[in-house]
């Protein structure tokens, strides 16, 4: 084993992010943002916006989910490996949804 692989203080491998502790103040701000998001989504549901109702509801839900993932789940402060893993998972999920949905939508194309 060469010295290059033995790196107890982790200086030769910058891929490993510094360990970061999120402060309680940051958590409080995230908590506040999530509560505001919940309030907005409930209020928006009472207004008749036609096709925009589900779009806005899902948009707010996605925003809240991203906030939770980045801060509560610390992904913002993780290494590239973890960020890629999380991103790849959601990307694969979107691919599966898109391809399955396009199949369902195109089966009876023009027959309705």
């Amino acid at each position, binding site marked *: 084993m060469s010295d290059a692989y033995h790196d107890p203080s982790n200086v030769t491998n910058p891929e490993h992010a510094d360990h970061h502790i999120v402060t309680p103040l940051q958590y409080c701000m995230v908590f506040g943002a999530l509560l505001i998001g919940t309030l907005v989504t409930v209020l928006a549901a009472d207004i008749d916006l036609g096709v925009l109702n589900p779009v806005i509801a899902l948009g707010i839900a996605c925003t809240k989910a991203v906030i939770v993932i980045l801060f*509560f789940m610390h992904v913002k402060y993780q290494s590239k490996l973890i960020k890629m893993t999380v991103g790849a998972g959601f990307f694969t999920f979107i691919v599966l949804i898109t391809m399955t949905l396009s199949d369902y939508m195109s089966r009876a194309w023009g027959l309705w």
Partner: protein
Amino acid sequence: MDNAVVVTHPHTHETAVHEEHHHVALPQHRHHFETEEQQREAGTFGMWLFLLTEIMFFGGLFFAYLLYRNWYYDAFVSASNQLNVTLGAINTVILIGSGFFMALGVWAAEVRKRSLLVLFLVLTTVLGFAFLGIKYVEYHEKWEKHHIPGEHFDISEFVNPPIDAKTGKASEKPLAPDMAQKTQVFFSLYFAMTGMHAVHMIIGIVLLFWLTWRAYYGEFSSGYVAPIENFGLYWHFVDIVWLFLFPLLYLINRHPLK
């Protein structure tokens, strides 16, 4: 190629032996990891791989909801408006609060404050129970209204919706009996999705009891944060599922397309 063990790093003198074990600083540090940081990242990576399988699992349920909502749109609108938005919103706030205390628990473990960690874990658990309690009230209402799919399901309220006292019109669009039967599809998905979510919460609460017990005896206040942090990832994931369930099941059908 055989699997014979080849000594590539012979212990020639005492300092080499000393060097090799130098990085073992904490009792939880396994010797097959180079550094504490590497071990921690490997754990986080593994936890995320598990959560990705969970995304696919809940994703399948969400996709079924998307598809059936398009097929039986009127039934889904009427059935969805039977849900109690106030209770759903209160539960959302409770769950966000529970996630908030879990996040603070991870912080308390990082800064090695034992009693704060125990307090935050207990608060996380209490709010988890509060969520399940409200969920029970909602399920019980469905039981009383015969809105649980199966033999005793009652479509009368969907075929003849109650007349609104103020406007003098039906509170919902009346459904033809065959479409009214499809409200069972909505309630099946409602119980499958919120039920699977509740099962995840029950598992989480069981784990919380175990972690609180260990935290009380000081296991996570000496720099060993990984179990708390990885459980936190699970708990926040369950939160995220609810952040999508709430608008999809309770909110988006309040104003149906004409």
